[in-house]
């Protein structure tokens, strides 16, 4: 490590352009891939077999040009401001976004109609807007965020804000399909549960890092089982349980599963005690079993998962169509534009993975899974190399939020676990999801910047801690 005797920069601070060759090389591949994809779509337009199927809409070059432009702008912005952030994250996310855009291009545009000042926007138009906003937010956060004090110090405030947001949704939210997930203000509507997962991670990172040594070294014994020391675990579990309870009441099972998994994994990361994870999994199974007995829509979901062909016309229809789509895809898929994804209900929000499975085949699916692993790995790497425990846990938590969510919905599409209604990050259609994932990427990039303010000095253990510690 080289020394710099220069004072550390504050907000924005010293602006000295630095080249980011690795990112540039990767973005070149991304651009080539998106180009190849759009050429493939254009050729598909003229192919007989596609012309015969309803539900194909050709790609608009304008959209792809704008998207590539935004990626280049994000790259240049970081170059010009000299940020030494991670160089792989943006291209990986950019490639996922590009795949999303290609998919939204080829789906019928009238799946979504949004009116904006008299102009009518279709599926790809709206998704492009969200992609552009998402990448812009990510880049802005990467450049502007130089200190984590605002996240680190106010964790209880953040927690309260999160719970308040959730309660607000429950009381004021608009009901769609029996779920109150959306808050609407005029033309703008969003799903606060998406933001809640980031707030939860911020809170957990702060709490776990502050009390880490106590959580690791001490435990409350219940018989032969060691659980984390009760007074320290209580606020965490309470916060998580409130979030979970409300989410379950709102019938958003996917978010509940996500929160639970992220909580357990962060707890393990902070304490390195696999016993806690085992305990958590057992509690989850017990809770899931109870819910299966008591809650009818959980029962339906699990029954569909076990045998969708028992009711192929109504409840099992969606999953069966998705499996047919995967089967039609085979090894290399039927090609972009060559499949019939419109046979799957809600394909643009719940089942883009199956649509891509049909058109890109097993080869394409494994590449997409690989891209998600890249995003996760970069996030974990940022966590492992971060300045201190809080940043480590925050980065890890953010990476998990993306990775575990992708796992849950992909597994649901493949009938490996029951289907839940959460989105596939960066690929599903949906503004809230795209924006929040943009925030996640932005924070990860900010955390990865090698030139940011150092974490605060470690505090010597206080009197309370010295008294409660039973021998070092």
């Amino acid at each position, binding site marked *: *490590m*080289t*020394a*710099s*005797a*220069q*004072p*550390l920069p504050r907000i924005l601070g010293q602006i000295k352009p630095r080249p980011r060759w690795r990112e540039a*090389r*990767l973005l070149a*591949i*991304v651009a*080539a*891939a998106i180009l*190849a*994809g759009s*050429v*493939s779509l254009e*050729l*598909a337009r*003229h*192919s007989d077999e596609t012309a015969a199927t309803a539900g194909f809409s050709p790609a608009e070059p304008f959209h792809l040009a704008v998207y590539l432009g935004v990626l280049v702008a994000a790259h240049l912005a970081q170059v010009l401001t000299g940020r030494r952030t991670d160089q*792989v994250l943006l*291209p*990986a996310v950019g*490639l996922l976004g590009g795949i999303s855009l290609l998919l939204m291009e080829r789906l019928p545009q009238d799946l979504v109609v949004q009116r904006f000042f008299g102009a009518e926007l279709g599926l790809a138009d709206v998704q492009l807007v969200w992609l552009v906003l998402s990448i812009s937010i990510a880049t802005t956060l990467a450049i502007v965020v130089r200190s984590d004090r605002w996240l680190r110090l106010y964790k209880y405030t953040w927690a309260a804000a999160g719970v308040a947001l959730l309660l607000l949704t429950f009381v004021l939210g608009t009901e769609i399909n029996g779920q109150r997930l959306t808050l609407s203000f005029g033309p703008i509507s969003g799903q606060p549960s998406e933001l809640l997962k980031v707030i939860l991670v911020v809170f957990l990172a702060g709490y776990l890092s502050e009390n880490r040594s106590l959580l690791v070294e001490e435990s409350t014994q219940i018989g032969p089982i060691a659980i984390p020391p009760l007074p320290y675990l209580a606020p965490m579990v309470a916060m998580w349980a409130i979030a979970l309870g409300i989410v379950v009441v709102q019938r958003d099972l996917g978010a509940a599963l996500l929160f639970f998994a992220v909580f357990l994994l962060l707890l393990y990361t902070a304490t390195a005690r696999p016993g806690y994870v085992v305990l958590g999994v057992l509690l989850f199974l017990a809770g899931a079993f109870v819910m299966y007995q008591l809650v009818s829509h959980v029962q339906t979901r699990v029954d569909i998962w076990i045998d969708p062909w028992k009711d192929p016309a109504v409840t099992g229809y969606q999953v069966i169509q998705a499996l047919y789509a995967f089967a039609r895809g085979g090894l*290399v*898929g039927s*090609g*972009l534009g060559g499949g019939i994804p419109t046979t799957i209900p809600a394909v643009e929000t719940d089942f883009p993975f199956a649509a891509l499975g049909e058109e*890109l*085949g097993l*080869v*394409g699916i494994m*590449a*997409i899974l*690989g*891209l998600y692993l*890249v995003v996760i*790995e970069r996030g974990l*790497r940022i966590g*492992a*190399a*971060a*300045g*201190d*425990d809080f*940043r*480590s846990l925050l980065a890890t938590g953010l990476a998990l939020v993306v990775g575990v969510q992708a796992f849950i919905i992909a597994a649901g599409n493949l009938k490996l676990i029951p289907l839940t209604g959460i989105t596939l990050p960066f690929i599903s259609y949906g503004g809230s999801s795209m924006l929040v994932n943009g925030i996640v990427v932005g924070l990860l990039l900010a955390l990865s910047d090698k030139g940011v303010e*150092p*974490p*605060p*000095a*470690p505090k*010597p253990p206080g009197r309370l801690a010295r008294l409660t510690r039973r021998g070092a």
Partner: protein
Amino acid sequence: MDGFTATIWIVRLVFLALLYLFLFGIARALLRDLSAASREPTTELGRLVVLASPAGEPAPGSTLALDAITTLGRDVNNAIVVDDQFASAQHAVLTFRGRTWYVEDLNSTNGTFVNGQPVDGVVPIGYGDEIQLGQVRFRLERPRR
């Protein structure tokens, strides 16, 4: 297979190939990370080697262990007592934050220097860097394995 069908399939396969080209571009770095992550952590944080100490306190040539927070200065309550007329009572503090060492000058009269450069505020330092308080010079060393 006719020309059009061949073309469209070539383009489709090229698209898939580019996805994998991207992944392979990252694979090498990923494997390096995995091997680095599994290495054992060390237990010591760092050491200071005393390069020059005219007054003899601390002893020149000695190696001092470092805590997460190590204060340096003329006052006897400091972790490392620097008995030098150009050193202030509370001169500087070395802190290990997360994974990096930082030195901070505590508004001393004559200032703290790292590799000859004056320190203003909190500055990260690396192993091998030289720190100077008054006439006393130290070098930050890696911890023993």
